[in-house]
């Protein structure tokens, strides 16, 4: 089998996988005007084109150190893998959430979360993801992923989450 044939087969496999995706089309529930809530079916995590696959296998979150927007080596690896996946699945739109730990004032933390989200946005654009697909939002310290008054939680909460939706 030639290289070309292999590539063709792989492409077909990806297309088939996409077709067998049990997302079943657009599934955006309306929770009422102004709820700010959209729902997206996550699909089968074994389907490499599913949102569940992105969230679980690739990883949707990168972490930051105190008051920093620097991306760690590990964070950059995750974002590069994300970019490859996002470029391969252009049907999805992307919201980047920036978060801060609780050890700061409320408004500064909103600005800090915005800075982190923008850092991730710039990185993904640098990896070829179309800027028009990307939006950013900051939650500051309002939405910790874990709540405890310890370093362990603060480390987890200083994060950016790439949220993929239809």
């Amino acid at each position, binding site marked *: 089998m030639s290289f070309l044939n292999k590539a063709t087969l792989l492409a077909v496999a990806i297309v088939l996988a996409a077709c067998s995706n049990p997302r079943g089309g657009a599934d955006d529930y309306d929770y009422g005007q*102004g709820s700010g809530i959209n729902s997206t079916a996550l699909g089968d995590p074994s389907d490499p084109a599913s949102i569940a696959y992105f969230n679980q296998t690739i990883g949707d979150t990168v972490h930051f150190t105190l008051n920093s927007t620097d991306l760690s080596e590990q964070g950059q690896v995750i974002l590069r893998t994300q970019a490859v996946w996002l470029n391969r699945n252009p049907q999805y739109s992307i919201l980047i959430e920036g978060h801060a730990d609780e050890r700061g*004032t409320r*408004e500064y933390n909103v600005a800090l979360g915005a800075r982190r989200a923008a850092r991730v946005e710039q990185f993904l654009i640098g990896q070829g993801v179309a800027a028009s697909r990307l939006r950013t939002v900051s*939650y500051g310290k309002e*939405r910790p992923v874990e709540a405890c008054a310890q370093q362990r939680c603060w480390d987890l909460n200083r994060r950016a989450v790439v949220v993929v939706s239809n």
Partner: protein
Amino acid sequence: MTQISRRPVLGLLAGFALAPKLAFAQQTPLRIEINEGVIEPVPFAVPAFVAENGAGSEYATSLAQVIADNLTGTGLLREIPQSSHIGRITSFDSPVQFSDWRTINARALVTGAVRVNAQQITVKFRLFDVVTGQQLGDGLQLDGRTDAWRRMAHRVSDQVYQRLTGESGYFDSRVVFIAESGPRTNRRKQVAIMDQDGANTQYLTDGTSLAFAPRFSPTGDRILFTSYETGFPRIYLMDVASRRRQVIGDQPGEMTFAPRFAPDGQSVVYSLSVGGSTDLYMLNLTSGQRWQLTQTQAIDTAPSFAPDGQRVIFESDRSGNSQLYIMPVAGGAAERVSQGQGRYSTPVWSPRGDLVAFTKQLNGRFHIGVMRTDGSNERLLTASFLDEGPTWSPNGRVIMFTREEAGGDPVLMTVDITGRNLRRVPTPGPASDPSWSPLLP
């Protein structure tokens, strides 16, 4: 808004002139000098108000209690409980037997009367210096609807405070804040409003979207707050009475937050984040015109106006960590004012204009502090795991803020600008982000 009318009470008691002044002629009139820092609170008595008709008796004790709680809450005064009283006030206009009040060591005495007809309540009060036997100021009568009875107690408290200290009070005022509920990882945060003493809480938003940091207008009839109603932080302007609200300063792709009114109530200063940079903007509420105040790659946020409306103080991390800066609203250079160690946030200009209150992070602790507007005379008033977001009482004597102990729920606290009299403000549940109104009209 409930209307309360007031007028002096005429016809002062004749026996008053006969009060035995001689023995106390060497005494100076009662005056509490706040600036000297009161260590020993001045004892006072507020006997139950005289019910001048049957319907009035329902309010006679409650009025006295609210007044006593307000005055004791200042830390400047201390109530002598009614159970210790020897004297009885049975008629508002009869001469006061000062010896009864001297015996229990009261220095000040508040007497009052209440009458209720249908939905109308009439409250009268007088304030006496027990030692000299002198009345302090005129008697005063307040008329209004019965549902405003607590406000009348607050008005009386403000009068007593003013007559004793020479400074205006802060009791007839309200606080907007965030009422919190639910798990910390998915917190429900509603904009709420209450009296300054924690009574009469009402919810201004329903909690379906995250909201934070409400701010009163200079006249107390409107508020600004930030809400995630659209999924993104946006600034809302709400009329408190009608609860009608609208988005302001909104442009697609932007996040706006940290709004505050200018002293004239006509414009708003706020933060706008786009592309990771957070700058200060001004918005004219009438014309809709907006313009940019700062333009840096840094975080410029938490702006607050000087009382003259000409300058804004804000926090910026342009130097590498958060510090406080002042700049002219007309534009121009920002001048750094905070000079100490640590990180400074959430500066708020005092109503008098001479001080700035702020949040400071130092060595892993959070403090509420005050400094002069040139950065000098910095004093830290509090310390805890997380203290943040000071707001001034209408007279600039007290600061309310959010406190969170490690792992605990946030509560509202007050502290005197001397650093004394730290108190918790009662709220129905976890609460944060207080903003104190001016004295109500």
